């Protein structure tokens, strides 16, 4: 058996085995199981990306049946990028969590189950990035949804339970609506495999309604304005490692499926108006999320609203994608760089915010003045994440905005470029406000650190990676060229 041939399957099965073993082994052994699984997943993810870069996209036929009867996994550059991002953020979150849950109440029964739930979430994210089957997407989003809600409520506090309940309802509404859409699509086109669907799709009412429902459901799960109502409380009241995973990775899962549906499954001109609508909602998200982030008084809510804003950029790719293959390549690469940069920066920012909350014993921004003197590493991590979020050079966020603005100007739809610039200024406003509070010249009232906190370096590692991402842009652009979207559009790497 050659591992390289089975990488897509192993990327789903490895964290799934880890989840089962962590559950059976019990709370003492579970952190070690999770760490071993996370390390193995990083190795598999890198091997997978290397293979896709070397050989281009390929399909993995589960059970040997092949689509449309069986389920195919689609291994392409876009999947590889998100899987590598998940493995890096995942490993950091796993290491951070082993410190985090040691310092919280060890007798809380639920905490022992964190590792199992977290590995289930990892399984479902990898499954989502790899699947080429719209029904299998449904099974994966159920797994993502249930594990995410359980992870939010794991601390058991009343705020977390209330936020988790709201998250659960939004999640179920999304999953059911999506399933309804799949049923209509199958009734019309007679297949659930994405590649088969893209060949068979005819513009009839049934298929169009089905696809519209599916995209709407995924937009709800991605928390695009105005369907963002569940996100800030859910992301802010979760335990810190969970907040980081939710903001950095989970919203990208459903976004990834929107990319597949809008750019791969639907032929040009299908669902007229949908692309423009998504772009307009994205622009609204950038403005609304940033304004909300500006007025928050609690640090985790500020960070969560910034996620609402940053999600908006990801949706600008859809209106731009209709302007020929050169603009499509620019816009898609820009969106992928942005998703990666935001994943790293926001993962790091949430971990840093969690570290500040631990040191101050509360989450009130106004009382965090002068934190820089007591916790310089965390403050530096916050500042670095700000660099990428505003899109200052040199950072991943800068490259993403540059690519998206180039796409907008090349296409002649200059107004999207205005949105991008305004978004950067608004991000600067809320990030400067946060950093100004932390570096203010005031004695900070932090609790003395109980022991040297090694985990403070983890958020810095992630935000620094987001800045250094600028140098990985050629790699991401190669991965984008190895995506099924750009290959079928005829863009040569």
């Amino acid at each position, binding site marked *: 058996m050659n591992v390289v041939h089975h990488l897509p*399957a192993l990327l789903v099965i490895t964290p799934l085995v880890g989840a089962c073993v962590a559950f*059976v082994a019990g709370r003492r052994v579970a952190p070690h199981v999770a760490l071993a699984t996370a390390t193995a997943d990083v190795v598999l993810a890198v091997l997978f990306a290397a293979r896709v870069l070397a050989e281009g996209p390929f399909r993995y036929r*589960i059970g040997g049946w092949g689509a449309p009867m069986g389920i195919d996994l689609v291994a392409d550059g876009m999947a590889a990028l998100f899987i590598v991002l998940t493995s890096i953020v995942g490993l950091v979150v796993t290491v951070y969590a082993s410190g985090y849950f040691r310092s919280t109440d060890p007798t809380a029964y639920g905490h022992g189950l964190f590792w199992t739930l977290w590995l289930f979430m990892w*399984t479902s994210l990898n499954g989502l990035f790899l699947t080429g089957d719209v029904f299998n997407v449904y099974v994966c989003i159920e797994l993502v949804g249930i594990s995410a809600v359980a992870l939010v409520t794991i601390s058991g506090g009343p705020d977390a339970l209330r936020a988790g309940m709201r998250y659960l309802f939004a999640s179920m509404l999304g999953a059911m609506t999506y399933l309804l859409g799949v049923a209509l699509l199958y009734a019309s086109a007679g297949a659930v495999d994405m590649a088969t669907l893209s060949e068979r799709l005819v513009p009839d009412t049934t298929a*169009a309604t089905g696809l519209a429902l599916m995209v709407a459901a995924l937009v709800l799960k991605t928390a695009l304005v105005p369907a963002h109502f569940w996100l800030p409380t859910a992301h802010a009241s979760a335990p810190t490692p969970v907040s980081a995973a939710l903001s950095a990775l989970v919203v990208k899962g459903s976004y990834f499926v929107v990319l597949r549906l809008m750019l791969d499954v639907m032929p040009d001109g299908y669902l007229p108006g949908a692309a423009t609508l998504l772009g307009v909602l994205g622009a609204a998200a950038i403005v609304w999320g940033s304004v909300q982030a500006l007025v928050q008084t609690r640090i985790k809510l500020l960070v969560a609203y910034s996620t609402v804003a940053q999600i908006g950029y990801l949706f600008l790719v859809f209106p731009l994608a209709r302007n020929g293959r050169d603009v499509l390549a620019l816009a898609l690469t820009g969106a992928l760089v942005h998703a990666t940069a935001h994943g790293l920066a926001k993962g790091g920012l949430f971990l840093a915010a969690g570290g500040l909350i631990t040191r101050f014993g509360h989450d009130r921004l106004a009382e965090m003045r002068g934190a820089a003197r007591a916790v310089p590493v965390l403050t530096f991590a916050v500042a670095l994440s700000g660099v990428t979020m505003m899109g200052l050079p040199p950072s991943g966020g800068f490259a993403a905005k540059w690519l998206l603005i180039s796409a907008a100007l090349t296409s002649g739809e200059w107004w999207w470029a205005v949105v991008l610039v305004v978004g950067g200024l608004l991000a600067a406003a809320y990030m400067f406000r946060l950093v100004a509070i932390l570096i203010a010249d005031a004695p900070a009232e932090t609790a003395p650190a109980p022991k040297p906190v090694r985990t403070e370096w983890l958020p810095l590692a992630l935000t620094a990676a987001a800045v250094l991402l600028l140098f990985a842009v050629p790699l991401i652009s190669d991965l984008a060229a190895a995506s099924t979207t750009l290959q079928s559009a005829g863009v040569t790497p």
Partner: protein
Amino acid sequence: MPERPRIRLVPLAASLAVFALVLRAVHALPDTATGLSAEMTAGAKASGIKNVVTAVLLDFRGYDTLLEIAVLMLATIAVLSLRTDPDALSRRISGVAGPVLGALTRAYVPIMIVVAGHLVWIGSSGPGGAFQGGAVLGAAGILLALSGFARPRWSSGAPMRWVLAVGLLTFIAVALLPLALGGTLLQYPDESRKSLVLLVEILLTLSIGASLTSLFLASASDTSEGERR
């Protein structure tokens, strides 16, 4: 004072709009189905699993089922993660509530176990299978707990976690087996297809039954009505 139910206009309007859209979409359906059922039936005949539902669930779309089993196990773990004391309900009910209940439960539970086994066995050729058998097994577990029979020691803690996970772990092992034989994930070798599917189904039945019982018992309130203030 209980909150008065309010009619929320926005969700109501949204639901009605979706309903109208779906109605229009269903009305526009062609009269002849374009699904995959013909291919599936032919494939099931060739694979030796006569019940096409079982063939679809465990073979053609076995990957979906593998992840669905993960969903069920995850749901159980998610409910367990909310508990401060996962065995609260069984501790509250103690002692069998009367001779009739005790005698009936003693008579029914063995029959239910046999029915569950039968459903799994006939699943390869007719309606039945792991989900149906597991549902009957789960009901037997709930009946035992609610009638006040003492739980055996293995039904909580580490042994119970094994029972919950054994179905999924077996399924994963069987899914990975073809990789050593040169196939892809879940590509059962033709000669052992039937026996592998049966093995998976039997152990899945145990885990599904245990999951359903645990879900029910763990979602009971920590405190009984009388203890609330």
